C-alpha cells in the first residue's frame, strides 16, 4: 500500500466518520417519524459554534463540549415540540419545508447570537502530526475516528439494551403496534430528535478543529449527511455508517487522484449510479408496494 494511498484513506475515513454521525441523525429521525430533517446540519453547526464560544470565555473543553451537546439536544427537542408535532399528519413535502424553514431560522439566530466569521476550535490534544506508514495524520483525526466508533458502540447498546432504545426501534417498525403495547409514541419522537441533535453536535465539535466552523457550516455537512444516509439506505443504522464512510472515501480518493474541484461531482455521480442499480441504497430494505 503506497503512502499516498494511505494518506487519502485516512483523510477519507476521518471525514467519512463525520458524515456517518450526521447520517445516523437523519436515519434515527426518519425511523421514528418518517421526516427528513433538513435542519440536521444546523445541529452540527450549533455543536461547533457553541463549543468555540464557550471555550473562548474560559470554560474547560470537556465542560464546553458537554454544554454544547446539551444546547443542541434542547434545540432538537424544541424543534420537535414546536414545529414537527403541531404539523402532525401533514404531507412529507410540507414537513420537509418546515424543517428547511427551521434550518434558515436557526442559521439566522446563529448569525445574530454569534457572528458571520469563521472560527477555529483548538485541537483536543495538540497539533503535532503523527507518522503512520509514510502518511501523516493530525491527532484530531484519531479523536474523530475514535469518538465516532465509541458513539456507534453506545448507540448499538442503546438500541439493543435500553427500554427507550427498544421503544424507538418498535416505533420505527410499526407505529400503531408500538402504541398498542403502551409505548408513548410522542415521547419516542421527542427522544429521536434530541438524540439526533446530540449526534450532530458531536460531529460538529469533532470536525471543528480540522475544517473550522461558522454559522453556515451546517448547509454542506447536512447535505453530505443526507447523501450518506440515502447512499447507505434510509433508516438503516449500519447503512448510515457504511454510506458515510464510503462517501468520505470517494471524496478523498476523488480529490487526491482526479481533481479536488470535482470531488463532489465524482461523489454525487457515483451516488446516482448506485441509486439507479440499487434504488433503496446499499443496505436499505427492499420495499414492495401496496395498492
Amino acid at each position, binding site marked *: 500500500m503506497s503512502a499516498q494511498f494511505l494518506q487519502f484513506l485516512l483523510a477519507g475515513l476521518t471525514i467519512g466518520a463525520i458524515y456517518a454521525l450526521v447520517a445516523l441523525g437523519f436515519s434515527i429521525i426518519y425511523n421514528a417519524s418518517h421526516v427528513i430533517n433538513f435542519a440536521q446540519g444546523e445541529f452540527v453547526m450549533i455543536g461547533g459554534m457553541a463549543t468555540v464560544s464557550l471555550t473562548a470565555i474560559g470554560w474547560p473543553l470537556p465542560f464546553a463540549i458537554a454544554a454544547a451537546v446539551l444546547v443542541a439536544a434542547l434545540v432538537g427537542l424544541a424543534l420537535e415540540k414546536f414545529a414537527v408535532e403541531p404539523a402532525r399528519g401533514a404531507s412529507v413535502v410540507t414537513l420537509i*419545508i*418546515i424543517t428547511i424553514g427551521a434550518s*434558515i*431560522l436557526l442559521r439566522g439566530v446563529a448569525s445574530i447570537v454569534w457572528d458571520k466569521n469563521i472560527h477555529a476550535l483548538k485541537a483536543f490534544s495538540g497539533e503535532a502530526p503523527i507518522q503512520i506508514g509514510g502518511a501523516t495524520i493530525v491527532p484530531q483525526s484519531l479523536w474523530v475516528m475514535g469518538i465516532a466508533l465509541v458513539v456507534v458502540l453506545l448507540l448499538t447498546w442503546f438500541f439493543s439494551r435500553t427500554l427507550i432504545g427498544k421503544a424507538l426501534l418498535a416505533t420505527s417498525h410499526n407505529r400503531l403496534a408500538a402504541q398498542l403495547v403502551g409505548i408513548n409514541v410522542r415521547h419516542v419522537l421527542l427522544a429521536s430528535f434530541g438524540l439526533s441533535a446530540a449526534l450532530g453536535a458531536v460531529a460538529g465539535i469533532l470536525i471543528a478543529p480540522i475544517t473550522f466552523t461558522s454559522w453556515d457550516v451546517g448547509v454542506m455537512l447536512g447535505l453530505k449527511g443526507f447523501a450518506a444516509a440515502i447512499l447507505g439506505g434510509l433508516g438503516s443504522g449500519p447503512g448510515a455508517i457504511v454510506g458515510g464512510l464510503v462517501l468520505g472515501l470517494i471524496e478523498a480518493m476523488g480529490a487526491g487522484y482526479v481533481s479536488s474541484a470535482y470531488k*463532489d461531482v465524482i461523489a454525487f455521480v457515483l451516488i*446516482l449510479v448506485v441509486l439507479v442499480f440499487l*434504488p433503496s441504497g446499499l443496505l436499505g430494505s427492499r420495499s414492495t408496494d401496496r395498492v
Partner: protein
Amino acid sequence: MFGRLAASRFGGLAVLAAIVLVLPLALVNNYYYEVAILVGLNAIVCVGLNLLIGYAGQISLGHAGFFGLGAYGSAILTARYGWPPFAAMAAATLGVALLAWIVGRPILRLRGHYLAMATLGMGIIISIVIVTEDRLTGGPDGMAVPPLTLFGLALAGERLWYWIVGAGLLVAVWLALNLVDSPHGRALRALHGSEIGAEVTGIDSARHKVRVFVISAIYAALAGSLTAHYAGFITPGKVTFFHSIELVTMVVFGGMASTFGAVVGAAVLTMLPQALTLFKEYEMVVFGAVMMLTMIFMPKGLVPTLASRFAAGRP
C-alpha cells in the same frame, strides 16, 4: 362571484391577466418593476415545477440546475459564440429538455426521498461544473449576457420587460392549465394517487413521469434564459442547491396541485425578502419563521387553504 370565476378553468387565467394589466398602476418606480419582473420569472419556473411536484407527486430538489443551464446556455452561446439571442434561447432550452429526458429516464424510477436525493445530486453536479469551468462561464464571478434583440433592436428597460415577462407568465399558466386537464394531466394525477393503480388501468407511468419532468425542466430553462437576458448578468448563485430549495418552497407555500398557488407562492416568497431587508440582520430569522408558521398552520399551502375557507364561509 370572484370565487366562482376563479374556480372555472380559464376564469382564473382572466383574473391573472387582469392583475398583470392593472398592476403597473401600483408600480411607482423602476425598483417595483424589477421586483414584479422577478416575481414573474420565478412564477414561470414554479408553474412548471408544480406540474411535477403538485400534480405528478414527484419531488425535484434540482430545478435550479435546469434554470441555470438555460441561463448559462443562453449566455455562453450569445456572448462567447455570437449566436442571435432567440436562437441561443431555443438551443439552450432544447439542450436542457434533452438532458432532462436522458437523466429523467433512470432517476424517475426512484421514489420519495431517494428521488429527492438523485435530483439534488444532479443539481449540485450542474452547479459545480458551472463554477469550475470558468473559461466558459466566468466561474464564481459570473458573466455578462447580451440583451435580447428583435429585428436588430435591443429589448431593454424595466417597463418593456414587465410586459414580456407578464405575457410569458400568462402563456405558461395557460399551457399548464390545459395540460392539467388533458389526458396526460389526468394520468399524472392518477399515478400521484397510486403508481401501480395507474398502471393497472393502462397508464404508462414511467413515460408520463419523464414527460412531465421534461416539461417542468423546459419551463425552468426558459425562465433562466429570460432572466439572464433581462439582468444582463448571471452568477452561479442562481444555480445553487439553495435556489432549488427556494423554488420548491414557493410551490409548496402557495399550494401544491394549484397552478395559481404556484404563482402566489412565487409572488409572496419573492417579495418577502425584499420587504425584510428593513430588518437587516433579522431577515433570515423572520423568513424562516414565516415559512415554518405558514406550513404548520396551513399545511396544504396558502391558496388551497384560503380557497376552502372562502368556500366554507359562503351560505
